[in-house]
């Protein structure tokens, strides 16, 4: 396996673990507090974790990163397509959760519209579209996060905002890597995304070790 693919696999699998861990904690919290946004976060991060695990597995078995495998075998294309779709849906679920918290309604038509728009195009175009849509959704999540935080900021909220901010920057770089087909840029984007998930892990651990007031 090429070193680029190995780095991509390692970072993706670590991000998948953090995403699934966040999903589990959100699920546990939701059982206690029953909050719509927490439910969306749980589902969104579960999808994201699965998507990242699929991407990591594809990289492991093909020995190539997503950017390197645009002209590759059908299985790799299918796996990459699955990852990009799941990633887009995951961010959409989280964004809908935040939107419902901010505006009190669910933009129900958004999910099918995004998927319908993405259907029936090649992997290259689809990945461009997917990263672009993920970028828009992440920008929306960060914006809504900022709005909600402005009301009640605390030591935990800054870490979560930093995490989403880094994942947003990562998607800018990943979109640029798909546009330029640059493997190094793709690895840089994956690295920044990993830093985002690392911030999320720090938040999850810090919120878990907190004791009684």
């Amino acid at each position, binding site marked *: 396996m090429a070193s680029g693919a190995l780095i991509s696999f390692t970072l993706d699998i670590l991000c998948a673990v953090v995403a699934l861990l966040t999903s589990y904690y959100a699920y546990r919290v939701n059982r206690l507090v029953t909050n719509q946004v*927490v439910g969306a976060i749980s589902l969104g991060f579960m999808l994201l974790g699965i998507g990242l695990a699929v991407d990591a597995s594809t990289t492991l078995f093909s020995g190539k990163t997503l950017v390197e495998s645009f002209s590759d075998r059908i299985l790799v294309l299918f796996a990459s397509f699955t990852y990009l779709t799941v990633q887009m849906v995951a961010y959409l679920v989280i964004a809908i959760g935040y939107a419902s918290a901010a505006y009190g309604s669910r933009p129900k038509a958004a999910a099918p519209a995004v998927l319908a728009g993405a259907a029936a195009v090649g992997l290259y175009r689809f990945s461009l579209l997917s990263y672009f849509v993920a970028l828009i959704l992440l920008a929306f999540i960060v914006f809504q996060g900022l709005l909600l935080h402005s009301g009640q900021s605390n030591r935990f909220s800054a870490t979560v905002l930093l995490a989403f901010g880094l994942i947003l920057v990562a998607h800018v770089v990943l979109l640029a890597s798909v546009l330029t087909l640059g493997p190094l840029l793709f690895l840089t984007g994956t690295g920044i995304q990993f830093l985002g998930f690392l911030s999320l892990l720090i938040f999850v651990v810090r919120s878990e070790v907190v004791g009684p007031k």
Partner: protein
Amino acid sequence: MAQSEKQRSVLRINLDILNAVRDEGDAKPTHILYKANLSHERLVRYLDDLTEKGLIEVKQDGENRTYNLTTKGVSFLIEMRRAESFVQGFGLAI
């Protein structure tokens, strides 16, 4: 909208009561009532419910009635504190 401007959720009220009981130790209803900002009628209802769930216990000494957290209540408060930290991280409130 800030939490104080909204109507408190049942969970928030229960947490306020449990925190008041924990802070006081052998907490008298009047102290809990003051700290949890509830009417007497509503407080009695919530205290009965929390006692039934085994989160607090009543100590009756003549005419004096005091409340304490049970072990289950302490564990519940710790779990809720973690949940609150998690939820706050995403800019939300219980």
